[in-house]
């Protein structure tokens, strides 16, 4: 493996007393799509803001392309294309004027500027709307232009902060295709989202974040593998729990069993067979089943498995 283009170690950021980022470390290899996956308030945007030099960390170290962020921010900035979570465009200006402006502040001009504008407009499919004021665009079109604005100077690193929020499925697919094309062209992409499917589909590696910490970091497949054959959440009246636990543990397709606030969390080697065995067991012991939930192997389930919380509330 070549040396990582981004190295983050023990990053800490506090807002007053609130620890938004609490000791985050990860490395991103050149050319990969790295996902930061986590619910609202996990600290994804804060982490990206630090990496793009907008925020000063309270502790920790960041190296990008071998430069130390604390000392060489001016060398790092031109490498990065930032696509902020909130739309950051000038609504009364046209798409073309917006891109021309962002291009100019990165030092583009003349023919190269025009070529780049045409290129990114083509990329996000807004070429025929180039002359229209951004305020006349639909939400999805604004998102696409927001993406284009981050690409105008051909950055080596692209930071995408939830680029698909509020975008219809069709436009979302469109954006995914762009991202895959950019990756194919060799761009390194740091991608935050709270949509599991996106991370599963796009990312080479994913860091699962919650409350300022990274809980797990690996390829989507390996993370899903954490669940083994899948997890079942079973709810039965509480006075039956202690009585039933040993019997459940003894079932052939069950790996591990633990109580989880009023329910029983059952890790299986194969979810469907375990489910049948469970129902059989409750039936013969005459235990009423209050609820039964199967967590299909997915990052969503991994998150629930890791935190006991659903990603989307």
């Amino acid at each position: 493996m070549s040396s990582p283009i981004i190295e983050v170690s023990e990053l800490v950021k506090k807002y007053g007393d609130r620890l938004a980022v609490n000791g985050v470390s990860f490395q991103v290899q050149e050319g990969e799509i790295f996902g930061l996956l986590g619910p609202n308030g996990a600290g994804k945007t804060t982490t990206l803001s630090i990496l793009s030099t907008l925020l000063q960390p309270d502790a920790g170290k960041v190296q990008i392309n071998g430069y130390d962020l604390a000392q060489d921010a001016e060398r790092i900035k031109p490498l990065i294309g930032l696509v902020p979570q909130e739309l950051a465009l000038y609504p009364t200006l046209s798409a073309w004027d917006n891109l021309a402006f962002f291009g100019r502040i990165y030092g583009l001009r003349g023919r190269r500027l025009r070529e780049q504008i045409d290129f990114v407009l083509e990329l996000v499919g807004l070429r025929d709307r180039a002359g229209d004021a951004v305020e006349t665009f639909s939400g999805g079109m604004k998102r696409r232009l927001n993406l284009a604005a981050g690409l105008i100077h051909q950055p080596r690193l692209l930071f995408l902060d939830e680029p698909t929020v509020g975008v219809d499925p069709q436009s979302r697919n469109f954006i995914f295709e762009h991202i895959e094309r950019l990756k194919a062209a060799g761009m390194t992409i740091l991608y935050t989202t709270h949509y599991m499917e996106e991370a599963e589909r796009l990312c080479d590696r994913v860091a699962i974040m919650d409350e300022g910490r990274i809980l797990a970091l690996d390829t989507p497949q390996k993370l899903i593998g954490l669940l083994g054959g899948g997890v079942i959440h079973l709810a039965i009246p509480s006075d039956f729990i202690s009585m039933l636990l040993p019997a459940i543990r003894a079932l052939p397709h069950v790996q591990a069993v633990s109580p989880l606030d009023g329910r029983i969390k059952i890790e299986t080697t194969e979810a469907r067979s375990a489910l049948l065995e469970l129902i059989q067991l409750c039936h013969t012991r005459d235990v009423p089943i209050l609820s039964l939930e199967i967590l299909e192997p997915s990052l969503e389930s991994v998150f629930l498995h890791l935190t006991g919380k659903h990603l989307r509330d």
Partner: protein
Amino acid sequence: MLQQILALTWKDLKIFFKDPGAVVLIFLQPFMFIVVMSYALGGLFEPEKGAIHILAVNQDRGSQAAAILQQLDALDAFVVETRWEGQPLTREMAERLIVEGKRNLALIFPPDFSEVLGQIAERHSTRIVFLADPTASAQVVEPIQGTLQGLIERRVFIARMPKGIDFLLDTLAPQMSREQREAFKAQAEQASSGGLVGGDSPVVIVEREAPTGMRVEKYPNTFQQNVPGYTIYGLFWIVSLLTSSVLRERREGTFRRLLAAPMRRATILAGKFLPYYLINLVQLLIMLGASSLLFKMSLGYSPLGLVVVSLAAAAASTGLGVLIAGLARTDSQVGGLTVLLLLTMSALGGCFVPRFIMPDWLKTLGLITPHAWALDAYQDLLVRGYGLREVLPKAGALLIFAAAFFGIGISRFRFD
């Protein structure tokens, strides 16, 4: 870096010119004030244009009334009309014109006017009727009465002189021959009509002059009075524009993009403020240029002085914008408070009402506004006819305001 500042500037100028509301606020608003106020108050400042029309019905059998009317008409402030559509005016016609609202003042000289004026021993009296529309204000009627009184007294003197001399000589020199007496009278009449108190080329002339050092060709016209005031008033509206632009960039998150770009913060700030300074300069150019072209307003004698004062005034007003943008945190803070601040400062600074009519404490208080200094400097140049040297201290004061505003504003400036 320069290219980045230019890109930032160009971007904000584009945003400005795409916002009709902002363009109207900055360019049209002060201009409308100037036009409306100047025409509304025209008569007060500009005697020729706002001359008061007086109808005159002359029934006098002698020549004294005609002489008075001629002298009244010769004054800049009055236009005397003795005929209407070719017809000599009668009292009925004059009354009808006033009722119809075409004129609001008329003088009616009685048939015996000259005779009564010339009498010495007799004690007859006669009346000049002054017809005035009841809505005509005292400010208009009283000066006319006063002027008329003065003219009549002089006429009385001239009319009575021949008889008076006869009367004097009868008592003092009864032995004087008829020829000697006539020669003396002729000399006396000539001396008085061409001389000391009256006639076409009076010896004593009352003329308006400016204090030494000020150069005034004529009276300042309405526009010279109003243009500086409303120009300064309009200039400072840039505060509202600049502040809302900064808040918008904060709110929309575009500052984040700018911060992420390879630019120093100073570059971003420079690019953020420069366009508004330029708009201010264009504003001054348009206001003064248009006033000079459209209203024939004199621009004074010192183009260099105008340039220096304009650069300094625009710096102070843009600076105030930076200060408010630096202090303001939310949109709601900005809207109402900025308007209140701008109107109060304009009023205190004398943009609406000249500061010289304010009580002393208010006059002194006004000096805390850059408006007062800017206004004074422009009036020095446009109205008082001063040059660069005289306005330099005031331009300096404006630059001090600017430096303080920029300093505090930038130190408190936040990008998010």
